[in-house]
């Protein structure tokens, strides 16, 4: 890591992106007090990660890259262990003896995730998606101010990913938590308030997803017509900025799509307006980096 510096406001959804080995997990490890930093200052929820590690830990929740559940215990026992470790509830040897408030909270969370029936089953029987959801339930039980998600959906099938995100969005809306996400699925970061892209231990770019896209790529549309030569002539005569020999890729940097199309008389057979995705912007940046490296 080299000169990585950033600030995330309370309630913000912040995403850290970068290729494998860029330093994402290292960053998260330092932020969550599991790794010592070699230099610099790190504060989470107002506490220094080294001198007040315990206060930091009390205020954060983490979903690790690898599931950190005890597969010998039931789902509820995993949650109970967590609740007691974080001092939310006192130790009691069985579920029945736990305070009513605990039971209520666990059942509510389990219901929200649709796993209330299997809450007392050993988690050996759980699917990957269910385990992830259970970890999220668990990490929320001590009401953290900052939730760290380290590639939370890696290894999940698309349906499980979707439903996990539906739930996470719900959580973000209701709990007003700060969320710190690393992911390889860039569409998951599209809704982030801010994104930082990190390569080789350095932050290359930081900003809203839109500002990053605008910096790296431009909006464009693709058009085509049966009468290609006619369309080409028209584009040339109207000084439209385009590329390709058909279909034509038209830049929307200076002109809006509506203005361009309004001025065209040739009958179009294809019209496709493309907003660049974060993924395209990201790949563009990574490619630039590779070129610079060469």
């Amino acid at each position, binding site marked *: 890591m080299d000169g990585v510096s950033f600030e995330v406001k309370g309630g913000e959804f912040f995403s850290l992106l970068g290729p494998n080995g860029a330093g994402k997990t290292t960053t998260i490890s330092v932020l969550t*007090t599991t790794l010592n930093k070699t230099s610099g200052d790190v504060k989470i929820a107002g506490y220094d990660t080294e001198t007040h590690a315990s206060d930091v830990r009390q205020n954060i929740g983490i979903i690790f890259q690898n599931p950190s559940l005890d597969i*010998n215990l039931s789902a509820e026992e995993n949650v109970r262990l967590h609740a007691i470790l974080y001092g939310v509830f006192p130790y009691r040897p069985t579920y029945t003896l736990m305070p009513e408030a605990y039971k209520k909270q666990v059942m509510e969370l389990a219901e929200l995730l649709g796993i209330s029936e299997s809450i007392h089953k050993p988690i050996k029987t759980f699917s990957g998606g269910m385990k992830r959801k259970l970890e999220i339930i668990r990490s929320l039980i001590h009401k953290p101010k900052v939730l760290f998600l380290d590639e939370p959906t890696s290894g999940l099938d698309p349906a499980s990913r979707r439903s996990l995100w539906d739930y996470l969005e719900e959580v973000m809306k209701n709990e007003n938590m700060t969320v710190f996400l690393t992911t390889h699925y860039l569409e998951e970061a599209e809704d982030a308030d801010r994104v930082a892209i990190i390569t080789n231990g350095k932050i290359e770019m930081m900003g809203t997803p839109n500002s990053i896209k605008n910096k790296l790529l431009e909006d464009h549309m693709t058009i085509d017509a049966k009468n290609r030569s006619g369309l080409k002539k028209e584009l040339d005569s109207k000084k439209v900025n385009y590329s390709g020999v058909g279909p034509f890729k038209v830049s929307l940097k200076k002109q809006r799509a509506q203005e361009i199309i309004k001025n065209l008389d040739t009958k179009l057979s294809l019209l496709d307006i493309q907003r660049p995705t974060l993924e395209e912007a990201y790949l563009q940046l990574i490619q630039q980096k590779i070129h610079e490296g060469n």
Partner: protein
Amino acid sequence: MKEINAILTIAHRDLVKLFRDRTRLIFSLIFPFIFIGVLGSSLQSNLSGELGYNFLTFVFVGVLAQTLFQSTASGIISLVEDRENDFSQEIFISPVSRYSIIFGKILGETLVAFAGVVGILVLGVVLQVPLDWARLLTLLPFGLIVALFGGAFGILVMANLGGQRTANQVFPFIIFPQFFLAGVFNPIQNLPPVLLFLSRISPMTYAVDLFRSVYYTGTAAFDKTVIFGTLVNMAAIFVMFLLFFSIGTILFVRSERNR
């Protein structure tokens, strides 16, 4: 209060895991059965005339101490296991003192070891080992000390081991010679210099001798079966416990943080 709750819940987890793992329960009885039933019985039948004490009882008391020491020590292997399946992340990221975590772990394995002792006592009854039950009862608090001691020893060993494979390979080499050096089933009143040295630096020696010094106290067999007195053993164990526990915890936490 939070720390005590944390210690209890970490210990609780180990006990729960034991009762869900039937094979481990059964395996914990196989070694004592071989030591007492096979080795002890055969030596008692062939040697006992000149000893002046019952050899079977001698071995039985030794095995009780050895089991408590070893069971807790090897139970700490599960810390390495936790590290491997990433569960230790969950525990080590919690706002609980690292010492409480390790202490909870040792306490849990101590309870597990006591569950094993219950099995050995049943074995003693079945094999008709001549036992003074009132004296056995006085061993109870010392059993706790021996188990905690074994746990601290386990922490020190585990902190220096990488993966579970290494742990499973190395641990027998560290624990097995101690059976003989500590005199679990062999009298060690007289030893050649090299063995004497090794015997005196084996932690298990003091655990086994503590048990015998308490069990045989005030009996005619005391001088023939015990090497140090109870106080010397307690002092040795106390010092080693503090050393093993603090050094082991520091090393273990450091290896967690630099992983």
